[in-house]
């Protein structure tokens, strides 16, 4: 126990008053009863004093009582001289009774005090544990520890967390000393796992008291306590606080590690998907090209001319496919890295769509493209080349997901301040749950048959459309098939000064 116990005068004064009162009472009773019985009345004062204030006041009361009894009631009267030896036994009896009663009483009092302390501590620790349970991150846990510890121990507080002998100040009161020396002490505590600093035998010259926050895995942090008046601490309380804090801090650290691991896993997964997708998508056309060419090389002369030209056609088609794929990879890299150069100028929308269709002429096979641009739409502000990429991707998708001989409709109409452009197919449509996600990189909707694609096209489109301050979304048509819709500003907005 470090609690200060200054000698207090009040119990002795009250004891003296009690002895005086008993003496007056006895003087009044004198003559009515035998003075030997007064000894019992005096012992009342001794017992009370013992029960209320403990051993020393009770011994003081015994002596004072014996002296008063001797002085007023033992012959010769009004002297401290004793003629009858039997009174000596009464003195001894007083002392023994006083000491025994005071010991018993002081133990009872101590137990009561401890019980009360325990209750208070339990309450505080309960509150701490509730706040700790509600805290998720290391920072929140540290802040809860700081607040509760500071209130309870009436000191300013700092929480350091430690990883591999390195200290991180996670939470601290503004007036907590965090200079180099104090930090060194905290580091020592982290490394050695025992308390140090003020009021301890180790590094006692420091301002703060540093207590390790320990778990079975070792020391995970340091609790720093600082009292500017150099007061003492309730060590039991510190013990209880630090063990509870350690558990909470450990939980937060583990949770944080789990979160980081999850994120790393997700990144790894994305990377794996990326690699998988790219290598698969690049290899698929290459397989056809290599296959067709190696067959041609080997059996060129013996081959049926029809088969020969079919093979050449395959190789050629697949090489174009490969080229589109590489173009898309380059585009997504530009979109993602923010190096997309965009040059918005008025463009003949019909020309943009027509040029896109021209490039994809062979890709359409027997599908029919219908272009329907509302009267009144001529020039729309856009980047000609980039919007061609958008249309080419959308038309390519429509081709992929619709049967040959089907119709792909491209329409444009004015919608308020915007131009609403739609690329409509009558293919399989898009599962409702995928309508949003198909614009995510590498995401591909579930589909009724295997369709080659990288899942890049629509995310490129979104990147480009958003760079035009427009938006793009997908919807299913009531009559079947899907529509990709875009809304682009119909007019060039006045550029604000100062880019």
């Amino acid at each position, binding site marked *: 126990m470090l609690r200060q116990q200054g000698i207090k005068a009040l119990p002795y004064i009250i004891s003296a008053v009690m002895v005086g009162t008993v003496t007056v009472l006895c003087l009044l009773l004198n003559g009515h009863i035998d003075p030997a019985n007064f000894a019992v009345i005096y012992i009342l004062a001794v017992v009370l004093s013992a029960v209320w204030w403990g051993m020393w006041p009770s011994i003081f009361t015994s002596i004072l009582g014996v002296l008063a009894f001797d002085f007023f009631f033992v012959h010769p009267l009004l002297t401290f001289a004793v003629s009858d030896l039997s009174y000596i036994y009464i003195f001894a009896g007083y002392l023994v009774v006083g000491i025994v009663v005071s010991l018993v009483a002081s133990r009872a009092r101590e137990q009561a005090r401890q019980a009360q302390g325990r209750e208070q501590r339990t309450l505080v620790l309960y509150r701490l544990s509730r706040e700790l349970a509600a805290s998720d991150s290391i920072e929140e846990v540290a802040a809860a520890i700081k607040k509760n510890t500071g209130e309870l121990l009436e000191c300013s507080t700092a929480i350091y967390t430690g990883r591999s002998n390195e200290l991180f100040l996670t939470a601290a009161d503004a007036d907590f000393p965090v200079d180099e020396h104090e930090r060194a002490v905290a580091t020592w505590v982290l490394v050695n796992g025992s308390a140090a600093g003020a009021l301890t035998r180790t590094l006692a010259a420091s301002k703060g008291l540093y207590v390790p926050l320990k778990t079975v895995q070792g020391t995970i942090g340091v609790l720093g306590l600082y009292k500017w008046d150099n007061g003492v601490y309730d060590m039991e309380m510190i013990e209880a606080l630090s063990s509870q804090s350690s558990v909470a801090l450990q939980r937060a650290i583990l949770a944080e590690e789990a979160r980081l691991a999850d994120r790393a896993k997700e990144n790894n997964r994305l990377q794996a998907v990326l690699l998988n997708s790219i290598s698969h998508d690049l290899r698929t056309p290459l397989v056809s090209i290599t296959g067709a060419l190696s067959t041609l090389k080997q059996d060129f002369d013996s081959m049926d001319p029809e088969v020969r030209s079919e093979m050449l056609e395959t190789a050629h088609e697949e090489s174009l496919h490969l080229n589109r794929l590489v173009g898309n990879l380059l585009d997504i890299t530009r979109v993602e890295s923010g190096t997309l150069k965009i040059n918005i100028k008025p463009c003949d929308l019909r020309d943009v*769509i*027509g*040029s896109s269709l*021209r490039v994809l002429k062979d890709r359409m096979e027997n599908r029919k493209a219908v272009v329907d641009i509302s009267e009144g739409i*001529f020039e729309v502000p856009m980047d*000609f080349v980039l919007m061609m990429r958008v249309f080419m991707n959308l038309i390519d998708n429509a081709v992929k997901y619709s049967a040959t001989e089907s119709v792909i409709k491209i329409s444009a109409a004015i919608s308020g301040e915007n131009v609403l452009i739609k690329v409509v197919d009558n293919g399989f449509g898009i599962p409702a749950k995928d309508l949003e996600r198909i614009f995510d990189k590498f995401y591909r909707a579930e589909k009724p048959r295997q369709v080659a694609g990288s899942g890049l096209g629509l995310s490129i489109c979104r990147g480009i459309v958003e760079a035009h301050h427009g938006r793009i979304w997908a919807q299913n048509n009531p009559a079947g098939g899907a529509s990709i819709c875009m809304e682009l500003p119909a007019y060039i907005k006045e550029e604000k000064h100062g880019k």
Partner: protein
Amino acid sequence: MENKPGLSVLVVDDERTIRSFLKATLKSKGYSVSEAKDGATANELTASLNPDLVILDLGLPDMDGLDVLKNIRKASNVPVIILSVRDDESDKIAALDMGADDYLTKPFDAGELLARIRSVLRRIQPGTADTVYKTGKLTMDTARHQVTIGKEPVKLTPMEYDFLKMLVISGGRVVTHKRILKDIWNRDEETDDAMHLLRVTVSNIRNKIEPDPNRPVYITTEPGIGYRLSEEE
């Protein structure tokens, strides 16, 4: 149209496989082919061999292809076709402004390359004093100032006629915005209103001559660069 046999082509490219593929393609069409694998050799051979056509890659190991082009243009008017992986409009415009006759992005279609070669060679072939040009159903008779689609005469405004004539005379080569604005409207700058005028003109001609103006086959757009008269049908 047939080539005069023996026209010589200088292929400048640092990739051996591309040179050999170009050589094979060109030889099969009757051209004689010489090769240069870097800019220095290209400069040397253009001077010593005096080729009828140069096919020039921009990414050369020792210098930029544009510098080779600049060098060639100092001394010669030989047709140059740029063949490059650079597909940025600004690269294409820079090359065309510097005197390249046309530009083709790698990877390219051999048929398209041969068509471009024929177009640029037409520029230097004398004796084509024809005043009647035909592509598909489109006929332009510059002597009679007449444009017909099939048998149907097409009424063009003077601006539209001048524009179409410019493309027709260029014979399939790309014509840049800059040149069009300069030649037809006498504008030096690609101002917004000049470009607007150009787009309106092109759109109107397409409405008059294209079978489907939504998907033009005669006047095709080179995004960000200009227009060309397409030879395909």
